[in-house]
């Protein structure tokens, strides 16, 4: 597995003193669509801005294809960003933005960019300030894709879009991904979208990584156990409890394990991605309950 983005004890604290990201060690595989999920304020934007070099770490390191991000122009050429709410220059027209992309990027693919704008049916002479959120997001995506990056970073690209614009946007994104061998890192709190487009997942909460791994592996190694009420601490050592809930007589556990569940007292069911993400987002963050292990590409942060 080649790493597109690698972080090592990456931490970021803003001037006001809050740790937006704490001790985050991650490997995001190249060539995949990585989903970054978490509630607002979990540190998603911070992590993405660190990856594109808009922010620099307070502690720890981050590298994109082995080099610190934004260190040189050639390194900047390898990343593309669609920032949250797709900021553009309000007085510059759509055509001006393409011109901007062309004059600032040696690898600019003008045909693709022009074709995309054409297909979107946008008036090239319209100032960006008068575009809708969906149109702005599409321009931002065009700018980011046409510079032919190796990593495309999207920060909540569809959060402010209506369902139709959202579908069109994701369609455009998937086309761009299919056309080029591209690593995509995408943050969202819309789990449906994540489930549809991502094959690797990172769950962030309170600035820490809760779980990270390929979606397939995550689904295969997490099981829901239901049975008579009992103490989850007496489970086999290789079964890690992510979430436990008890009613008067029944216990329901979400456990992560590589091995089959042998205890016949449990009714074992598979879990869907949405429930898995929600369980990790809601899980308490005391280290004792979430030991750090890395196996089969599944990492659980501390």
């Amino acid at each position, binding site marked *: 597995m080649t790493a597109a983005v690698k972080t090592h004890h990456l931490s970021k604290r803003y001037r006001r003193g809050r740790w937006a990201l704490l001790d985050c060690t991650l490997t995001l595989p190249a060539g995949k669509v990585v989903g970054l999920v978490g509630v607002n304020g979990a540190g998603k934007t911070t992590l993405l*801005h660190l990856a*594109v*070099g*808009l*922010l*620099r770490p307070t502690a720890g390191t981050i590298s994109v294809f082995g080099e610190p991000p*934004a260190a*040189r*122009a*050639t390194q*900047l*050429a390898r*990343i*593309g*960003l669609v*920032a949250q*709410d797709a*900021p*553009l*220059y*309000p007085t*510059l027209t759509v055509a*001006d933005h393409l*011109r*901007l*992309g062309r*004059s*600032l*990027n*040696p*690898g600019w693919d003008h045909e693709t960019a022009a074709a995309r704008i054409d297909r979107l049916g946008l008036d090239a002479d319209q100032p960006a300030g008068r575009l809708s959120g969906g149109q702005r997001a599409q321009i*931002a995506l065009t*700018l*980011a894709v046409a*510079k032919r990056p190796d990593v495309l970073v999207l920060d909540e690209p569809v959060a402010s879009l209506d369902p139709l614009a959202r579908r069109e946007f994701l369609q455009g994104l998937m086309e761009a991904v299919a056309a080029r061998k591209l690593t995509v890192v995408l943050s969202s709190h819309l789990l449906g979208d994540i489930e549809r487009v991502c094959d690797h997942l990172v769950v962030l909460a309170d600035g820490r990584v809760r779980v990270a791994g390929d979606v397939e592996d995550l689904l295969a190694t997490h099981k829901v156990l239901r049975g008579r009420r009992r103490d989850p601490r007496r489970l086999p050592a290789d079964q890690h409890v992510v979430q436990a809930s008890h009613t008067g007589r029944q216990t329901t556990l979400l456990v992560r394990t590589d091995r089959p569940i042998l205890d016949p007292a449990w009714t074992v069911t598979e879990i869907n991605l949405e429930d898995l993400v929600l369980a990790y987002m809601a899980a308490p963050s005391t280290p004792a309950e979430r030991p750090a292990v890395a196996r089969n590409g599944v990492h659980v942060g501390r």
Partner: protein
Amino acid sequence: MTWLAWRQFRARAAVALVALAVVVLLLAVTGPRLAHDFAAGGLADCAAGRETDTGSLTCGDLVRGFIDRYPLVRLLGTALVVLPAMIGAFWGAPLVAGELEAGTHQVAWVQSVTRTRWLAVKLSLVGAVAVVVTAILSLAFTWWASSSDRLGSRISPAHFAQRGVTPVAYAAFALVLGTAIGSVIRRTLPAMATTLAVFFAVRQAVESWARPRILDPIEISHPTFTFYTDEPAGRVAADSGWVLSTQTLDSAGQVLSSGGTIRDDAAATLCGLPTASPTKAQLDACGESLGLHDVVTMFPADRFWTLQAAEAAIFVVLTGAVGAFCFWWVRQRIG
């Protein structure tokens, strides 16, 4: 990068160039007439230190009348003081702060151009326009006011900053100052206000503290003195330069007064005269016996360009220092 920098700046540059063209045209049209009026109206005689032959009018009256007829002297002088500050506030402060505020740095800083190059191109482009505009305006005004400046006033602090090369150095300094303050504060409006305040504070500090010290002023000793009741016009006319101080000393070199005059009763006491109402003759005799003389510390008018070069050099150095800080801050401290 040059294209983007120019695209973002061209509207403001156009406004500045149009305004500059209007002013230069106005100066070109009125310049010859002003020179003629100056020569014909007796002011040239005043400038040369001669009495005028215009009858009852004194040189003071002539100067006042001249200023009334050419309000542009004062207006453009003020404009040249204000222009560098405006460049700092309206071109410098939003240069980085405007992008941070609108979030467009998230577009600019993820293209295949480093922040250093981005800032370098923006600063040099805006800086070039700022320097050209200020230089043309200042030199045109210096030429236009050259005849009236023969009255010896252009080296005085009131006019010094409106002529020659200093406005250009001020403009360059104000631009990087505004950019630096905008980068640190990250919000355009507070950055504009802060830029104005800091710029004028620095200007004032240089004017009142550094400028008199960069070159050695000359000292002129006059064997004359002035009593309090004398006509101010009788004072030694050291007005062909920038007077830093006028002190009245006695023959022993003791400073009796630093205001350029000495009180009648004080002089009378020193000579043992009745303090009530000494006569003019008595006072003159008294002054002679005490060896009263004035020592004037000043920059003569012919040091104008030397002083201009020195002041400009100070601001060029300041520009370099603030500029270096600005690059460091944008590269290392934003984000």
